[in-house]
């Protein structure tokens, strides 16, 4: 009984190491090689449109609502202590440090990550990737690399837009509706948010999340079982793994960045 458990543990350990090696090799093969600037830029812009621009609507709308809710919740608590002047600081810090990168990444995984997996999976199941290979064109470089870079670039930008819109939403509710002083709202925010520790760390977080989410999405796409069911499962896995990885990494990064302050 115990031996069998140890065996199972060993097996899953080996499988994990193998998977990790496989995904790393996959990423390495996709990204390393002679860059083709002319065609590469063209493909990157196309993917940036699909991954980034098309995610704008959900990112801005969600940002707006999150900012509004934050202001509402923050105000009802702060006003009990007569500290509603600190609303700007509360909203900005929680958005810049946490909610912007994290919620941005979760939305990005749901909107762009799942689309990437489904698209690549469908290309695989309809033999488009195979036919590309047979034409002497490496699908890792032609299909995966531009999508990966696009995700990498789009995620931090989306996260910044999310944060900015959310702060605006917070302003609308806090200042325009609930009557917090506009000057205090912005002045406290400016005084409390430090560019190097807060904004830069937030951007670093979103770059890390962007990398991980896009990596998971393209890998799940290319490794999926090429059937309708397989693509469905791979898409689900992308969203689940990306969300868990984002939240887990967020804790780790927060501990490293802000743990000792």
């Amino acid at each position, binding site marked *: 009984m115990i031996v069998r458990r140890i065996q199972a543990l060993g097996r899953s350990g080996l499988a994990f190491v193998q998977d990790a090696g496989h995904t790393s090799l996959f990423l390495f093969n996709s990204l390393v090689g002679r860059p083709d600037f002319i*065609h590469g830029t063209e493909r990157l812009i196309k993917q940036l449109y699909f991954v980034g621009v098309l995610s704008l609507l959900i990112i801005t709308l969600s940002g707006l609502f999150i900012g509004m809710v934050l202001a509402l919740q923050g105000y009802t608590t702060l006003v009990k202590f007569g500290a509603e002047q600190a609303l700007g600081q509360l909203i900005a810090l929680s958005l810049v440090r946490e909610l912007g990168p994290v919620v941005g990444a979760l939305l990005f995984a749901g909107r762009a990550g799942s689309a990437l997996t489904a698209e690549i999976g469908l*290309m695989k199941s*309809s*033999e*488009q990737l*195979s*036919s590309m*290979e*047979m*034409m*002497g*064109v*490496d699908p890792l470089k*032609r299909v995966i690399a531009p999508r990966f870079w696009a995700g990498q670039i789009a995620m931090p930008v989306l996260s910044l837009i999310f944060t900015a819109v959310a702060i605006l939403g917070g302003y609308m509710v806090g200042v325009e509706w609930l009557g917090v002083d506009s000057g205090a709202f912005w002045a406290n925010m400016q005084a409390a948010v430090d560019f190097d520790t807060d904004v830069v760390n937030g951007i670093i977080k979103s770059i890390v999340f962007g990398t991980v989410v896009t990596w998971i999405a393209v890998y799940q796409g290319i490794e999926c079982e090429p059937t309708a069911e397989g693509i469905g499962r791979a898409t689900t896995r992308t969203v689940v793994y990306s969300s868990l990885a984002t939240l887990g990494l967020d804790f780790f990064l927060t501990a490293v960045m802000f743990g000792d302050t």
Partner: protein
Amino acid sequence: MKQNLDTIVEIRDLHFSRGTRVIFDGIDIDVKRGKVTAVMGPSGSGKTTLLRLIGGQLLPDSGIIKVEGENIPTLSRVQLYKVRRWIGMLFQSGALFTDLTVFENVAFPLREHTQLPESMIYDLVLMKLQAVGLRGARELMPSQLSGGMARRVALARALALDPLLIMFDEPFAGQDPITMGVLVKLIRLLNDSLGMTTIIVSHDVQETLTIADYVYVIADGRVIGQGTPKTLMESATGWVKQFIQGLPDGPVPFHYPAQDYARDLLGERVGENV
């Protein structure tokens, strides 16, 4: 091994298995330059797998697969991609890029592998599309094409780089008689007029036999019959005869293995205590 100039593809003692299932158990195949060679066999006999092995998309367990003297399984990734430029392959589904127009699909390999000016790409694409009769469909998207048209576009795309060798995976499967006739004519015509070598894997016996110069029949991982279509038709025996003539019963039984019919009807079910 000395390279035989008449032979473009040379397969020797090829073994391949998926898990415990043996797909090829030591097969030898020669594809002669300039000829149409057909590989036939029932569904699941590994015909498509054979094409993928020749194209280097799968690695054999052992054996030699030489294309123009290059042993495919031993090539590096870079070398393999170089060799693939002069192999064209037509997938069963056509495998057109769904986000590109017909024109852009055919232009794809030219744009990827050549530095030709746009005007020349335009002319070349139109020539290839003209050859398959779809010059007028160049602005359509793959989703607007019928199955037969998609295959012809895929054929034009496979021809774009003027390959030495072109491989067809089940080109006739699921096609109506007119499309089938068009494809049969095109494959033969293009092979002869462009000086290419063609490999067809198919289980459509009649169509394949009308255009093939030489036929291999594979089953159970082995080559069980080979020859020109004429000799195969005349001399086939046993399994090959059943396959070529499409007989419902023979060495391959009509019935899936089961226990005695009468006992089955009497309710003595296998694995159940009735």
